[in-house]
């Protein structure tokens, strides 16, 4: 009870030296911010590399009809109720040829392709993605590696056989008629894509998406990731105003492929391994420097606190405070400064993310694993300096300090 009371009192009292407090809070905020950013980059990079190395295989176990879906079929599988009655057909359904209904059991759903209907997750709708308004606008989930597909142009019945290479972006121009395997090879950085570019997206469930993007998931398993939906072609205004016109245009462009042409796949997006290692090493070094900086500042701060409070420590010891009690008094000030500084750093980054956002979605770094990891890093890097300094000050006998008038 006594030590807890001492801790709470000391925490309150530690903020009374305003100038000292705010100066070091500012220093800690800057360092914490830098550490958070470095850890976030490092974390993200590790995640990318992991996905790249392991891959996650998702097998289609059951398929729906190989024929193009009617809009009704699509909408009836939508995760949101859109008010279509059983048996109802929608105008323009025959034009809807650019998506494929793949049934992954309860985990897979088809998105709305009709601009009139709401999307399950507004942030994930292709119109946002197409404009680069993805939470991580430079990332794109790809389907790749050894995908053997039978592509059928539903209108003309032409077949396209293709086998995209690992890490390529590819455009799927028609409905898929045969079972195939999907392999998510990773989340790849991709420069901003022009609106007219065609591309393929794989949508994940919100949970899986959050897991992939926001959270550190170094130990996640394939069971945790589900394909939410496949939209065959997303790009330009396909999903907005001129939907069917755009679909027709793309279909016309793809048709030559069925006549013996080869698919015009984009350049592989993998970063060469050597560059990747270099980048990783660089980030790792940056992280070490960030932590070292925190260690240096926290040690310096511990030193300054004990120097500023030297006589106070002597008085407390004379009054009968045990070493542990004195340590609590000093620790509370360091803790309060470190935590406040960290909170300011974190909120500063969150504010920056908000102000520079490119979509309604803003990465919530405050409650992310990055924040937690950074906090632990900041706290842990502060510990050695604290122990070093407080041990030194606690070794000094009060009488020696009192003699120094």
């Amino acid at each position, binding site marked *: *009870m*006594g*030590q807890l*009371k*001492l801790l709470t*009192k*000391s925490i309150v*009292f530690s903020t*009374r*030296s305003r100038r000292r407090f705010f100066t070091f809070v500012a220093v800690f905020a800057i360092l914490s911010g830098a550490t958070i950013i470095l850890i976030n980059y490092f974390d993200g990079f590790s995640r990318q590399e992991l996905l790249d190395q392991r891959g996650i295989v998702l097998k289609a176990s059951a398929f729906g009809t190989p024929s193009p879906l009617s809009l009704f079929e699509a909408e009836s599988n939508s995760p949101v109720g859109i008010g279509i009655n059983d048996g109802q057909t929608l105008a323009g359904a025959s034009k809807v040829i650019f998506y494929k209904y793949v049934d992954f059991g309860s985990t897979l759903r088809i998105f709305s392709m009709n601009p009139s209907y709401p999307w399950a997750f507004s942030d994930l709708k292709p119109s946002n993605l197409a404009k680069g308004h993805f939470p991580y606008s430079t990332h794109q989930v790809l389907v790749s590696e050894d995908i053997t597909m039978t592509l059928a142009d539903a209108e003309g019945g032409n077949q396209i056989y293709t086998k995209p290479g690992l890490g390529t972006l590819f455009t799927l121009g028609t409905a898929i008629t045969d079972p195939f395997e999907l392999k998510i090879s990773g989340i790849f950085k991709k420069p901003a894509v022009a609106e007219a570019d065609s591309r393929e997206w794989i949508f994940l469930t919100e949970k899986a998406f959050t897991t992939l993007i926001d959270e550190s998931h170094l130990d996640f398993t394939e069971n945790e990731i589900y394909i939410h939906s496949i939209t065959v072609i997303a790009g330009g205004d396909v999903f907005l105003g001129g939907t069917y016109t755009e679909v027709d245009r793309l279909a016309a462009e793809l048709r030559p492929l069925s006549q013996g042409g080869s698919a015009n796949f984009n350049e592989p997006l993998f970063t060469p391994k050597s560059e990747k290692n270099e980048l990783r090493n660089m980030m790792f070094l940056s992280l070490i420097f960030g932590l070292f900086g925190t260690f240096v500042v926290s040690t310096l701060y511990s030193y300054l606190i004990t120097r500023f409070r030297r*006589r*106070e420590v*002597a*008085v*407390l*010891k*004379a*009054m*009968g*405070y*045990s*070493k542990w*009690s004195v340590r*609590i008094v000093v620790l509370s000030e360091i803790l309060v400064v470190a935590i406040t500084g960290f909170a300011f750093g974190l909120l500063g980054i969150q504010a920056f993310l908000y102000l520079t956002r490119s979509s309604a979605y803003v990465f919530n770094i405050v409650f992310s694993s990055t924040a937690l990891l950074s906090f632990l890093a900041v706290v842990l890097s502060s510990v050695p300096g604290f122990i070093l300094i407080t041990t030194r000050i606690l070794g000094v*006998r*009060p*009488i020696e300090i*009192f003699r120094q008038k």
Partner: protein
Amino acid sequence: MSSNTLIEAKNLTKEYIRGRKEVVVAVNDVDLEIPRGKLIMVTGPSGSGKSTLLNVLSGLDKPTEGKIIFSDEDISGWEEERLSKFRQENIGFIFQNWELIRTLTALENIESPLYPLKIKSKEIRTRAISLLKQVGLWDKVDNYPDELSGGEQQRIGIARALVGKPKIIFADEPTGNLDVDNAGSVMRLLKSFTKRDTAILVVSHNEELKKYSDKAFRMSNGRFI
């Protein structure tokens, strides 16, 4: 050792090294008994060894030779942490420079010795307020040390020394930085607390203060004269 003696020094000697080789005998074979409820005074010029005597008796410094008997126990060989606990339970300190904590209010300074103890916050507050009233500074309850005069700060220092209900108070030049009026006032205040059976040892270079003591010793070159 009489039954009324609270603390007794026997053949107490304290030497320390000045510079590289010079051995200084600050306290030289001193015997002293401090009874309960009495104000004992040790006077002497600077360097006479009176502050060293106080520091050794209070457990802040260790004697080179001799014994310090407190409640039938010789505390002279105790370890630092045991001495801390001993001071916490039995001793109050009053310093020449008051040594109040600048970031704590008058009330909080008085309370501070009790924070690590298993005493309820309410009880701590009650004790501190009572003492603040006794030293006549109730109206300064929320003032910080920098907002108080020297005399007021010393009164807070006295209240802080008393809040733990110590058996003995060690006061090192408690009036050293005060004017004559304030010095008299502080000494009278200290004297008043002996009625609670608290022993008080005051060391001072000011011979004028002897009139407030129950017994006074003069020190020179580490010995009573």
